[in-house]
């Protein structure tokens, strides 16, 4: 607990380390999975999944939190399942966001193409 208090504020990587210290490396695979899930959720946030797909992103966050809680209380099977789900949920939220942004950019350029074409036609007619 002392350790946990010491590292209370710094970022999540440290939180994952604390978790590791707390549970005494009981389950290496679980901690690797928790770190991977945290990374996936972070990446989803960076691309803007929280704004574009709040439901998907929220589900991933929620599962990650529950996974961490379960890991703390030594329910390691539950923690593992939740963490795996959080990772694939976050990856999906991120992919959906990336796809949506690419679609928006494509639609935007198609729209401004049309404007440009109209303007050129008009300008040519005006000569």
């Amino acid at each position: 607990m002392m350790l946990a208090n010491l590292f209370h504020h710094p970022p999540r990587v440290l939180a994952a380390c604390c978790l590791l210290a707390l549970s005494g490396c009981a389950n290496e695979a679980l901690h690797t999975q928790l770190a991977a899930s945290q990374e996936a959720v972070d990446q989803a946030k960076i691309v803007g999944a929280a704004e574009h797909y709040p439901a998907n992103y929220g589900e991933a966050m929620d599962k990650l939190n529950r996974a961490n809680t379960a890991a703390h209380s030594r329910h390691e099977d539950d923690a593992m399942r939740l963490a795996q789900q959080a990772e694939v949920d976050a990856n999906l939220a991120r992919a959906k966001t990336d796809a949506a942004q690419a679609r928006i950019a494509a639609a935007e350029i198609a729209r401004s193409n049309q404007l440009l074409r109209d303007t050129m036609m008009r300008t040519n007619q005006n000569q």
Partner: protein
Amino acid sequence: MKYIIRSTTGVLLAGMIAAGCSTAPSASEQEAANTAISNAGQTVDRASADPHVTQYASTELERASDSLGQAKKAWNDKHDLTTTMQYAYVAQQRAATAEELGNQRAAEEALTAAAAKRDRAVAEYESRPRSAPGGSSGPAQASTAGSLAGFPFGKAKLPRSSAPRIAELANALKNNPGSLVVIEGHTDNVGSPNYNQGLAMQRAEAVRAALLRQGVDTGRIAVRSHGEGNPVASNDTKAGRSENRRVDVFIAAAEAPAAGSSTTSSTGSSTGSTSATSSGSGSQGGQSGQSSQSGQGNQGQQPQQQQ
């Protein structure tokens, strides 16, 4: 969902202990497993049928297939419902992710195609046959470029230093009513290419918005994003990255139908009458170019407001 899984785990475990792992699953367990496996299988099949997915998201698709295989195995070998449901869920989400990666690729291809179309259109416009620049007031250059650099990291907020440049640009456009503007956004190489594509577009949009506030018509402005793909300085230094976080502005100057200019006339009649007949909607000669532009600007704003 989770609670169902938990309670069935208990039942399963108890059953396994009692009968040495050979208990037949209940009908409801069988149905739950079948449904989960079948749903995941359908998503995997759908993703596999998409050429964009098989070509560009094969890794994710393979992972989905693997998870689906493990779900089937967990059910067929052990009748372990918890593990089966878990793998089926993971397979489902991974297949959906693969589909989205395919969608993203398809949209990026559409974007590249549209950008190429734009480039061709601009080139065609700039190289079109022009009448001889006989007058003294017609703008001579076909295209001028300006650049607004030093956007803040990760943001599309205009740098403070850009205000006088924007005003200058808006003035130049007002003085050349027929000219077109192409605004191109750029980023440094920090962050994913896809994120940067969006950010660069937001930067270009910020410049467009600033020009609109200065009274330039929407219909005269086209924006596009180059993402991080077109740096002018090294991304290895802080100063270089700052220079790359920029917006380039190109003006394709048309032969301005400005009052007093005779360069646009092909018949030798007075400028006023030529402009009035060619535009068809001008109320007064010489200003007709401007009035048709503003009319078009209103049309152009409609799709923008929808977004």
